[in-house]
């Protein structure tokens, strides 16, 4: 083998390393353009505010609804829950089923309202059983 010209091997090696480094930086930059979009799409898709809104509405109703056996009052409450179901289906394309059952607690300064919430908009499903204490 004839004598190879092995001058400047360090320069060649450094050039190679630097080009690999630039290559990795390019990957990071190319990812940064897409990350804001995917994050905000994920935030938009997840119905966080809708679930919070349903919770606050239903708990607000439960606080106002005392224990009763009055048929007229129970029918009125059923109509409100039916409003929630029908409007959620019509305007949000979501299945929303809510029940609110106030129960008398003996030997307790408070009564208890048992709330179930079922929310499903096809992408996100949310179920909750919640006890709200209501003043006697």
């Amino acid at each position, binding site marked *: *083998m*004839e004598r*190879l*010209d*092995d001058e400047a*091997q360090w320069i*060649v090696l450094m050039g*190679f390393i630097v*080009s*690999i480094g630039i*290559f990795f930086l*390019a*990957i990071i930059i*190319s*990812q940064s*353009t*897409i990350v*804001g*979009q995917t994050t*905000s*799409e994920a*935030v*938009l898709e997840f119905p966080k*505010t*809708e679930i*919070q*809104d*349903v919770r*606050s*509405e239903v708990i*607000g*109703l439960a*606080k106002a609804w005392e224990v009763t056996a009055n048929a007229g009052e129970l029918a*009125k*409450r059923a*109509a*409100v829950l*039916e*409003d*929630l179901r*029908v*409007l*959620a289906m*019509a*305007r*949000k394309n979501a299945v929303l089923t809510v029940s609110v059952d106030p129960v008398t607690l003996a030997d307790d300064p408070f009564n208890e309202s048992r709330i179930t919430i079922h929310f499903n908009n096809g992408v996100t499903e949310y179920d909750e059983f919640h006890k709200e204490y209501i003043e006697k």
Partner: protein
Amino acid sequence: MVGDDAQLYTIEGVAAGMIMLLTAYLVLNTTSVFTPGDVHIPDMQLEQTVSDALAMMDTPAVNGGRSDLARFVQNATGSGRADFHNALMATYLRSTTGPPIQAPVNDLQYEAQIYYRQSATGSVQNMTFTRSAANGGREYLAREPAVRVTRWVSYDPALPHTLGLPWDNREQALLLEVMVWRG
């Protein structure tokens, strides 16, 4: 006999070729064209802002009291419209440090509808609550990206309310829908 001169140059050439090929692959594979309507970051921020504004409006000032938003909806055919507009635009959405910033810096427009269920027919109806076009704002031109924010509101016929409300006079849950856009 194969000539074995310049092997280092050959290796260097192969390495350089690989780097160029990888770079071309990376560039062609990851470039996306973003158009203003495609980027959802402003939509997400706007939706969160309006949602927070409605949540604040729907929070009673005292525990167990009625919220401002519930009061506006009780008066939806009267003073509630102007009160809602002022609360949404002046108090919450255009609130800044110092004097309020007017359009076109903070140029939010909105249209609010109230949806309700008629118990006799079971059908869902709506009424136009208020909109910024009726208060010196601009109409929706169907080209701005708009977001829709909803809020449940309780209606109680026992509390003061204006006459001529289109929904049944019973305790019920209404759905307030606010469409907001920059325009």
